[in-house]
């Protein structure tokens, strides 16, 4: 009777088992090699040889930065959707809150005009987003999950609507210019500030470093008491409550942590673009991040990374390949259409994602078996 579940487990587990059975040193060396590769990737002398991997039509370093940035968003959303099982559709709202906090605190053009350096504004941005997450989550997390989805969706849209008003502190379409770049004191080899306008590489490296730290933090968190509480809530909230898990508290934690990562990415975005306006925060982006997490495998950090990579890097890469073949394939234009459909298809045929979290895959298989015992046994 458990054959089906076993099959699901083994499919996901075989690769993992092979990885786990390798000697510790080999695993470390492999991981280190991957990280070094990722750091080298935006250098022209390096990627020019990887003709099958690079993007042809657009600047590789810029695409890599955008991808990394998107990966960071996906890792943050994965905490909320994947681990705690809360559907947060207003993720870009938190992103916007983070970006605007940085802009208001640092830009000489903002209404406050206090001109903090970028680095000082980042913790403030993270704190403000976390607080806004708690304010939003407080009333809604006590209720059924579907209310949370629609309230967060509304939240993101309201932030955008507010930002697009001309009288507000966000300056509407005119936006907030002259946001300083990160750490101007660090000089590159040419004596200019390392974080400039033209070169996207430093931003990529910065984002990559942040991603590594966030992944380490989230990974440790999921293996702690908090992470176990999240899984318990995701699987059966009532049961978890009965067993003494303070569900509301941990749901709020997941929500706030997800919001904080969103705010951090917003701060990064503001520092890179040095200009933001209300058009920077389209609602559709929230859905792209969600699609990335679901596609990759909610509940698995590396799944979210892969999903984000596919959602952002692949369309650019395909465009490059099309360009090389003399075709104009602009997949990026159809991104929302494609990944909206991906959400539907994945939920029906592979709800656990490409790189599933083992336990979550088993949950889906369990439920499916409950629904149709005859179908599953064949």
């Amino acid at each position, binding site marked *: 009777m458990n054959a089906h579940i076993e099959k699901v487990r083994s499919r996901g587990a075989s690769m993992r088992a092979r990885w786990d059975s390798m000697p510790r040193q080999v695993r470390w060396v492999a991981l280190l090699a991957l990280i070094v590769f990722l750091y080298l990737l935006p250098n022209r002398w390096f990627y020019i040889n990887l003709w099958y991997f690079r993007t042809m039509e657009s600047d590789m370093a810029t695409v890599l930065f955008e991808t990394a940035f998107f990966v960071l968003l996906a890792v943050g959303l994965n905490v909320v*959707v994947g681990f705690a*099982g809360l*559907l947060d*559709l207003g993720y870009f709202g938190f992103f916007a809150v983070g970006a605007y906090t940085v802009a208001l605190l640092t830009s000489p053009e903002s209404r406050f005009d206090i001109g903090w350096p970028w680095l000082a504004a980042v913790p403030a941005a993270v704190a403000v987003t976390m607080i806004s997450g708690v304010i939003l989550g407080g*009333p*809604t997390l006590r*209720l059924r*999950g*579907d*209310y949370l*989805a*629609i*309230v967060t*969706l*509304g*939240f993101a*849209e*309201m932030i955008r*609507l*507010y930002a697009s*008003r001309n*009288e507000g502190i966000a300056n509407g379409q005119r936006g907030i210019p002259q946001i300083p770049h990160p750490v101007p004191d660090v000089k590159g080899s040419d004596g200019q500030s390392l974080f400039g306008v033209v070169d996207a590489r430093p931003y990529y490296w910065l984002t990559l470093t942040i991603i590594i730290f966030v992944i380490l933090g989230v990974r440790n968190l999921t293996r702690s008491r908090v992470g176990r509480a999240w899984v318990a809530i995701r699987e059966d909230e009532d049961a978890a409550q009965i067993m003494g898990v303070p569900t509301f508290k941990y749901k709020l934690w997941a929500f706030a942590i997800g919001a904080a990562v969103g705010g951090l990415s917003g701060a990064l975005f503001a520092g890179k673009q040095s200009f933001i306006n209300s058009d920077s925060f389209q*609602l*559709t982006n929230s*859905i792209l991040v*969600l*699609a990335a997490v*679901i596609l990759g495998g909610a509940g698995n950090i590396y799944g979210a990374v892969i999903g984000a990579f596919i959602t952002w890097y692949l369309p650019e890469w395909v465009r490059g390949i099309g360009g090389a073949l003399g075709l104009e394939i602009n997949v990026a*234009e*159809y991104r*929302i*259409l494609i*990944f*909206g*459909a*991906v*959400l*539907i298809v994945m*939920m*029906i045929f592979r*709800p656990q994602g490409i790189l599933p979290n083992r336990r979550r895959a088993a*949950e*889906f298989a369990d*439920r*499916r078996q*409950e*629904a*149709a015992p005859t179908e599953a046994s064949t």
Partner: protein
Amino acid sequence: MDFDGLLRDFPDLTTTGLAQGAIYALVALGYTLVYGVLRLINFAHSEVFMIGTVAALGTWQALGYNQNSSVGGIGLILLLLLAGLAAAVVASTLTAVAVERVAYRPLRRRNAPPLAFLITAIGASFVLFEAVGLFSDNLHIGGERAPFGMVTVIKPENVISVGGWDITNTQILVILSAIGMLIALDTFVNRSRLGRGIRAVAQDPDTAALMGVNKDRVILLVFVIGGIMAGAAALLWNVAYTFSRFDVGFLIGLKAFSAAVLGGIGNLRGALLGGLLLGVVENYAAGLFGGDWKDFTGFVVLIVLLMFRPTGLLGESLGRARA
């Protein structure tokens, strides 16, 4: 805060609010019915409404009218209204049924967790919305994602003026048709055999199935009714607001959902009450704080309501209605 403005424009704000609220109520019915039966928020319902507005407009354009043409004569107006209504209702219903068939039914078969339904609903919503958005790009109607040029079927005129209360013909049309449709639907659900099936499945799906109610058919019926109501709302929206764009459904959907929760989601009469109330409150808020804040009101109402009375004003009661 502009209390004088609110008092001065009070009659005007009230009538506009009621007309807007009537449309919210019609859309809210779709949310409320599906929620009552399946315990599912059908996110794609806003897109069902949007497709309706586009279909009605497309029919008018196919008949040779555009944003510049003037429509005169009662017979012609009636013809256009009926053609638009038929197109909107058919398109909306087909969309609603397609979403249920393609997105929700396979998940029910697999006994998927509630989160999966929400994610599919969001996916379906974005596929529909983006498809129409890309379509409007290809029409080259001035700028990326520009609104469609809308036909003005009925010119708004004041037909009733009593003591400072001016009511236009479009407002009367919208409010009366919405109330009429709600009464018809309420009677259908409470008195007909099919309606009894809907209530039975809402109350207890398994027992209803044992009693010989075809669950799948009831669910289909619920989506069809939601689609019809959204189609009618779409036509009324076209007539009263003469505006349609690929994302027109989004805010209306959000507000209609708030209206459904306000009245008590799953409760048909609650949807009417919630819709009208939300429309009026929203317009008063616009009078008080300025038009920019109008769209915030629905959202604030939703949050406050969820904090203090999540079951809504009339309670969630499709299943618990009298037998």
